[in-house]
């Protein structure tokens, strides 16, 4: 291996730049990437198959756990599809509450992304500040839904929790704080030269390529593609709400950053409108346990882009087929294109810029639950015992150590 020749660098499945397992094989000439290939599929958990063996209610929580960050996106998309098959019209208040949680989720996801992007380019200060501010929206979500992640807000036929009148001022206060902070980050994104230099002209994806590669979400919108399911195919309460689809024309990572921070501002606007217009009434209607045969395609604009759920019912209480196309699967194929002819140093931020969520993407099959206690599985206790023995041989006794504390 010589510096002048080609070096193959494996990035992943385990690598500090990656928050989830995926694998990139980069061919380097010096610092330049001459070829890149992507391998995904490490997070295959068998969710689509598992859905076929569970009831709709159980599936809702399973689907919610496809992704930790856009959990509400998946469960809403699934619930919408089931409601469409069953012919249920959910109450207006439920639609509004779903939308409020959806937008709060977008806020938390975009702030999280901004921090991760900072970390990927070595700007840890940005990470610390954005994640500190993200706690505000996490607290709001915890208050409204009862949990910080996996909100469990949706049920077939509506939502499970109401937003109480006394909670609204708290939410609005949090939104004000966040808006002020977001304005600050927009200012920083426009002023800090090290940030701008690391982001602009990096990970270019032209308008034509964005269309050709089927990019979705902020990745597509930063290439000037006006594509947003909230506007194109309004669901929940989006038809009643006034908001802009943010696009940018620089086609690079900087554009994706700007699109996301400006979308934050739109989200605040949407949340305020929704809370002001929140209709009175019930929050759910009774849904049958057995869903009549039929099929439906549900689309949802997750923070990362279009989330597509296809559900097919066969008249029982379990679905016949559930198909999830998460936004990252649409975007990840453009990554190899964006990486070519760039520097190795750009790899982390280019990958991060599509806001990848490989858990969403991979889902599916593992071995059946029935085989759970197979002989191959390591017993936790055995590992625990082995490790204690291992240390004992080297003269460290945890049993003694613990007593001293």
């Amino acid at each position, binding site marked *: 291996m010589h510096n002048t020749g080609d*070096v*193959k660098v494996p990035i992943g499945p385990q*690598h*500090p730049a990656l928050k989830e397992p995926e694998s990139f094989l980069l061919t380097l000439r010096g610092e330049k990437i001459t070829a890149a290939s992507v391998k995904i599929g490490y997070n295959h958990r068998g969710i689509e198959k598992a859905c076929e063996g569970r009831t709709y209610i159980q599936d809702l929580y399973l689907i919610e756990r496809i992704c930790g960050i856009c959990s509400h996106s998946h469960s809403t998309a699934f619930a919408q599809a089931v409601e469409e098959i069953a012919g249920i019209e959910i109450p207006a208040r439920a639609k509004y509450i779903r939308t409020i949680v959806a937008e709060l989720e977008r806020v938390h996801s975009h702030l999280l992304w901004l921090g991760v992007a900072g970390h990927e380019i070595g700007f840890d200060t940005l990470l610390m500040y954005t994640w500190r501010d993200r706690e505000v929206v996490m607290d709001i979500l915890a208050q409204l839904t009862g949990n910080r992640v996996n909100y469990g807000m949706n049920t077939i036929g509506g939502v499970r929790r109401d937003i109480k009148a006394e909670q609204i001022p708290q939410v609005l206060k949090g939104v004000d704080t966040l808006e002020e902070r977001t304005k600050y980050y927009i200012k920083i994104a426009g002023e800090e030269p090290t940030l701008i*230099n*690391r982001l602009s002209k990096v990970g270019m994806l032209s308008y034509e390529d964005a269309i050709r590669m089927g990019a979705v979400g902020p990745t597509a919108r930063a290439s000037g593609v006006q594509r947003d399911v909230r506007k194109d195919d309004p669901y929940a309460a989006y038809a009643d709400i006034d908001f802009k689809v943010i696009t940018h024309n620089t086609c690079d990572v900087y554009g994706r950053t700007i699109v996301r921070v400006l979308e934050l501002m739109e989200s605040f606007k949407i949340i305020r409108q929704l809370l002001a217009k929140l209709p009175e009434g019930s929050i759910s209607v009774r849904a049958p346990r057995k869903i009549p045969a039929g099929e439906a395609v549900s689309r949802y604009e997750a923070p990362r882009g279009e989330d597509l759920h296809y559900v097919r019912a066969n008249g029982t209480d379990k679905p016949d087929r559930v198909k999830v196309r998460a936004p990252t699967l649409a975007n990840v194929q453009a990554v190899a294109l964006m990486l070519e002819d760039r520097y190795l140093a750009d790899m982390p931020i280019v990958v991060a810029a599509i806001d990848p969520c490989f858990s969403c993407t991979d889902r599916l099959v593992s071995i059946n639950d029935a085989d759970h206690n197979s002989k191959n599985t390591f017993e936790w206790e055995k590992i625990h015992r082995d490790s204690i023995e291992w240390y004992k041989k080297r003269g460290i006794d945890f049993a003694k150590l613990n007593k001293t504390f």
Partner: protein
Amino acid sequence: MLMPIFNILIFPGLLFLFFFSMLAEYYDRKLGARLQNRVGPPWFQPLADFIKLLGKEDIIPEEADNRVFKLMPVFALTSVSCAFFYIPLWGKNALYSFNGDVVVVLYLLTVPILTYFLGGWYSRSVFSMIGAVRSLTQLFAYEVPLFMTILAAALLADTWSLSKMAAFYSAHPGYWVFNILGFVIAQITLLGKLEKVPFDIPEAETEIVAGSFTEYSGRLLALFRLSINIEMVVGTSLLAAVFMPWWLDAGPIAGFIIYVLKVAALISLVSLLRSLFARLRLDQMINLCWRVFAPLAFLQVIINLILKGALFK
């Protein structure tokens, strides 16, 4: 006979340097954390990290060159510690000095980077080798402006000895003002030497895991980390000696306190600068050093040459 041994091993030698560098790392980390609105580590954290690493297994990759792999951390540690003895810390005299020790100190401060390179290169892992090459590439970029600024200060003092420079600047109070431009450049390029953001390209975690140190573990890593800490102390001490020649006649105890304050101030600047920026890319870093810092450092040299002609006719 006993005094030099005491000086080298205990004070202000290795033992002092060990604890002082631990304290410096703590200060840097704590301040960095506070700047980011975090709590930061407790005071004993660097020491605890060091002891923890000592207790860990040394894993040497099969393909690595065993001898080079093991020797490099020791080399790094020795060279930075040696440099410390030639720098006047409190008072005008270093422990050892001779005419030309500026060059030796600068050279000794370059050796660790070479050891990172060799250690990384002979680890034979992709990430280590990329990190190693990056270390060396970056070295050529920041070393020139850093050397020029320090040599510019030496030019004005008309000596190649750090101790005599200290004596000159305390004899001519106010002359340090001429070197302010050089100080700014030296402080920034020092970040390159210490491999800290925005110049932490050789160990950029999100790109190449830990660069040269990817394969290092246990005691060897502990030695490397110690030498990086000591390098921070020695580098800031050098800058303090060259660019902050104030109150050098204060006597041993007051002088010591002043010295610590100077180093603390310089480390504060390091922490602030590393929290302020995003990491640069290698090409951007090289461009910045050659297009901006090198010409400015050269300007400093010219200024000092003219001053020297004007002031000491």
